């Protein structure tokens, strides 16, 4: 075990929280700050550069999810995309019905808009998940009423990595004439995403989860979907999403999604082998369990609970060894509640407390994994030796 004071390079394993922006992506962005800075809505020459850059980026995003280019709309991130999809469909279709179906383990960017809509008179069904975090397609089907206007189920969960049965839910949605939105923020760059094959009507994505810039995202809206605007104002994005376009951000998003989806199979294979090495190593520590689905999981997601100890303490110790990770512990959440995802999978609060999420990225190596595996057992032991729960 290396001493924390020595110069250990940062082993960043929190890619599900955010990624660094690729230097190549930054380089692509920079000219649009200072040189081609024109407002794309303007008719003069320098603005033409901005407009063309946006359309090129739109094509790249569309290619990545097999969408028609003109059905991709740029937003300020995954949160805005989720808010737009859910509130936009709700308000535009309230004459048709007031019922929305989602799951208990969605990201807050889905859950909180749903809760807010409940205050505005909508009904929301929060479907339970099994112990692996999977929602049942039958449950989705059974929840549909003649009032149902939207089903929103995430592509893959950000905490436990479980992949949901998107294609099947898309099928059920289509059979029942209900719109289907999926939050694919964690899926892009890890899994194949195809809005056509998967019967997806609306899809959210966020740039900073795949080496793109923060504050950028997109919403795919299938042709014909009835949806209100969310950001009202100027005529940008074909009058669908107002606000002066974040040109450098959009350029960066386009660059990043092209890079990350260009060789997704090989990338996923590499991530999966690191992931499994990490999982197997960590599960050798006693009183330790894997959260999420053993196989239907994001190739870069590791989520382990260690009994008797608390996650923030693990993170702080890891930080002293230059390892960056995440936890679903109540102590790190602003609400002081343990992760609704872990609780949703049936974990008792005190167990959820000891969760550790390691999410891998392209710069991680086998060496990094082995370094983490060399450090974690000692940290766990040390914290358990302070814990009043280990002794009867």
């Amino acid at each position, binding site marked *: 075990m290396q001493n924390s004071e020595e110069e250990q390079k940062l082993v960043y394993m929190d890619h599900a929280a955010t990624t660094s922006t690729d230097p190549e992506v930054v380089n692509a962005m920079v000219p649009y700050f200072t040189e081609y800075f024109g407002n794309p809505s303007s008719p003069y020459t320098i603005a033409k550069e901005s407009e063309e850059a946006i359309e090129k980026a739109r094509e790249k995003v569309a290619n990545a999810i097999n969408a028609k280019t003109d059905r991709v709309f740029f937003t300020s991130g995954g949160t805005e995309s989720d808010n737009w999809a859910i509130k936009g469909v709700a308000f535009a279709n309230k004459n048709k019905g007031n019922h929305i179906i989602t799951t208990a383990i969605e990201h807050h960017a889905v859950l909180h808009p749903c809760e807010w809509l409940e205050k505005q008179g909508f009904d929301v069904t929060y479907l339970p998940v099994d112990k692996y975090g999977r929602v049942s397609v039958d449950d989705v089907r059974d929840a549909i009423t003649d009032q149902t206007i939207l089903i929103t189920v995430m592509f893959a969960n950000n905490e436990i990595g479980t992949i949901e049965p998107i294609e099947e839910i898309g099928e059920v949605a289509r059979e029942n004439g209900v719109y289907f939105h999926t939050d694919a923020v964690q899926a892009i760059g890890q899994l194949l995403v195809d809005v056509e094959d998967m019967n997806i009507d609306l899809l959210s994505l966020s740039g900073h989860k795949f080496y793109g810039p923060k504050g950028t995202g997109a919403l795919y809206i299938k042709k014909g979907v009835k949806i209100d605007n969310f950001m009202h104002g100027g005529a940008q994005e074909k009058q669908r999403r107002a606000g002066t376009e974040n040109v450098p951000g959009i350029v960066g998003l386009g660059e990043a999604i092209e890079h990350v989806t260009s060789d997704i199979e090989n990338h996923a294979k590499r991530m999966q082998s690191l992931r499994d090495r990490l999982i197997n190593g960590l599960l050798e520590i006693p009183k330790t369990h894997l959260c999420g689905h053993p196989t239907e999981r994001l190739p870069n997601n590791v989520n382990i609970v260690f009994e008797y100890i608390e996650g*923030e303490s693990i993170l*702080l110790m890891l930080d002293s060894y230059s390892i960056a990770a995440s936890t679903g512990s*109540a102590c790190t959440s602003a609400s002081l509640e343990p992760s609704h995802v872990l609780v949703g999978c049936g974990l008792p609060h005190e167990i959820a407390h000891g969760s550790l999420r390691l999410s891998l990225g392209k710069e991680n190596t086998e060496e990094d994994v082995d370094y983490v595996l060399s450090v974690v057992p000692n940290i766990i032991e040390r914290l358990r*030796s302070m814990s*009043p729960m280990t002794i009867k």
Partner: protein
Amino acid sequence: MAMYSKKVMDHFMNPRNVGEMENPDGVGEVGNPKCGDIMRMYLKIEDNIIQDAKFMTFGCGAAIASSSMATELIKGKTLEEAWDVSNKAVADALEGLPSIKMHCSVLAEEAIHKAINDYRQKQNLPLWGEKEEEKPE
């Protein structure tokens, strides 16, 4: 997320007085109602003076550092003085805690109180209360 002072990190990374105690004179275990964590404090008391203190904590960095600092603060003090060590005193000694972590220092104050009263109970002394007017003068 709010981050910790150097002092907090020191007491978290190198906690003082951590561990179990053989034959303690008083033990207090409290749970943090906010986030569900647990702190247990052991006291060794002689002549109304806290000779030694130890703790075991299941909680965040602030909880562990507060436990460590609290045990340091009360060692050598009379029970009356130790009773008066407030959560604010613990936080101040740690050079401050983020506001969303103040409740973790409350855990330490409560654990001290509970351990002192455990001792007083064993000694058949009247228990001290939490409210201002019931505190020892």
